[in-house]
């Protein structure tokens, strides 16, 4: 019995020491926006293939969570898919990409485009049925993101302005989930990162302008937000290495293939 207890303590001690001896955290933690997460994960994958002795861990949680984690030290790099608020400006921010915000509906929805005002009215609850826009008499199932989402923050700022998203809207906590719901519900409408739009949903054109990277590059499609990497103070050495990779030509080409807008081209 005593031997068993002793062995257990040894195991735990070894485990703890193995972590401590190489520094309490030798891997880079990148946490925050769910919009940025798949791209950050891609970057991390290629980065780790290139430098096999470095480890990068990517988490979600939402843009505000990333900012919080950056402040508290839980993350080395926080990721954020909206502009920083005034009280967050103490962080060092680096733009790593730009992303369009797409308003999406089910592929079978006959609607192909809306005006900014119509979108605002739908999300605020003023327009409640599809029959005010097209011919179908169905209640609009509005899907929005949680409060801490950068995507939602950007949407609120660029589309809603001072108007609140209405209370009865369905709330989900990541881009992927919103996409899943819209892909499954013919009467729904939502908004996600343009880079995440695929054949399961349809992106609406805004005031006649289609939601494409091309239109963003010529400044025609207006719903664009920055993807930010934030650090508390200047980035640590490991963080800087990763950020340099992300901003390099290789890193920026990677995301161009995935549908984001590289940071160089303005």
């Amino acid at each position: 019995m005593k031997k068993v207890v002793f062995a257990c303590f040894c195991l735990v001690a070894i485990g703890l020491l193995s972590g401590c001896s190489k520094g309490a955290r030798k891997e880079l933690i990148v946490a925050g926006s769910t919009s940025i997460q798949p791209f950050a994960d891609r970057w991390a994958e290629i980065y780790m293939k290139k430098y096999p002795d470095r480890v990068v861990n990517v988490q979600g949680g939402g843009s505000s969570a990333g900012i919080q984690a950056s402040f508290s030290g839980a993350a080395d790099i926080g990721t954020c898919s909206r502009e920083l608020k005034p009280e967050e400006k103490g962080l060092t921010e680096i733009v790593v990409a730009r992303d369009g915000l797409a308003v999406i509906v089910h592929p079978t929805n006959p609607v192909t485009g809306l005006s900014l005002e119509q979108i605002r009215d739908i999300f605020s609850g003023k327009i409640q049925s599809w029959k005010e826009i097209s011919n179908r008499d169905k209640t609009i199932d509005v899907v929005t993101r949680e409060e801490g989402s950068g995507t939602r923050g950007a949407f609120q700022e660029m589309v809603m302005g001072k108007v609140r998203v209405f209370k009865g809207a369905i709330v989900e906590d990541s881009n992927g989930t919103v996409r899943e719901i819209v892909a499954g519900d013919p009467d729904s409408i939502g908004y996600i990162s343009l880079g995440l739009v695929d054949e399961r949903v349809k992106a609406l054109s805004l005031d006649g302008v289609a939601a494409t990277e091309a239109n963003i590059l010529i400044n025609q499609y207006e719903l664009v937000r920055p993807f930010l990497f934030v650090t508390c103070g200047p980035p640590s050495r490991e963080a800087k290495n990763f950020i340099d990779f992300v901003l390099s030509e290789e890193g920026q080409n990677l995301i161009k293939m995935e549908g984001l807008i590289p940071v160089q081209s303005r």
Partner: protein
Amino acid sequence: MHLNPRHEQKVIHFALFFCTLVTVVILFLIIVFILRKGLPVVNSKFLTANPVDMGRAGGIFSTIIGTLALTLLAILVATPLGVGTAIFLTEYTFENKITRIIRFGAECLAGIPSIIFGLFGFILFVNKLKFGWSILSGALTLAFMILPTIIRTSEEAIKSVPAAYRQVSFSLGSTKWQMVTRVVLPAALPGIVTGIILSMGRSIGETAAVIFTAGSALRIPTSLFSSSRTMAVHFYILAREGISMSNAYGTAAVLIIAILMVNIITYYLMEKFIRKYS
């Protein structure tokens, strides 16, 4: 309408049978549904390869490691505490105010929802103690969650060891501690192990407390302070975000099989233990 009692019974009998049938059928449907869609995806490559492209491709190896690490560490922490508590309650004291307080504490702990544990673990371990999202944070939180189960099952196991064992030990001149460690515990071991395995089953499926404390990093964890993703968390993320439905089903299938095995082992161990002492 006053039915003849015999007719009433026939109708009720059928209704009750129907309730039971529905319950059992639902269970089978869930398991069969998951396994049918998930097993084709599970092969040795799925189990030994790491997730690629956020889990869209590749396997679930790192999540298996994460699950094992979290579960084992949680058990390592909770078992001494739980078994020690059980020994104290059965061997070293009588039923009095102290034991009532201890039992009350354990039962209340058992009823706390997992999200509150997650909240607590997130604020205390991840933030205040600066462990960050790590196996350590997750395992400690899980350990607190499974502690009541281990206390309860260990206590029952120790209680069912016949008094004769103890008396013989004393008559041979042993101290109390010697009696506990050399006679009672070995005899109660199957029951104690059952409780541990039961807790393993619970930890494997736990998501709410884990996702906020151990995080959701995809790589194989390198130390206790690494963040790690468990199979349950991986399944949750894959399914929610529609990253890869087939991989989601595969992960769920592995999860279900693991839990099925845990339950079957528990069942047989308990049968063996009951048969031994009845």
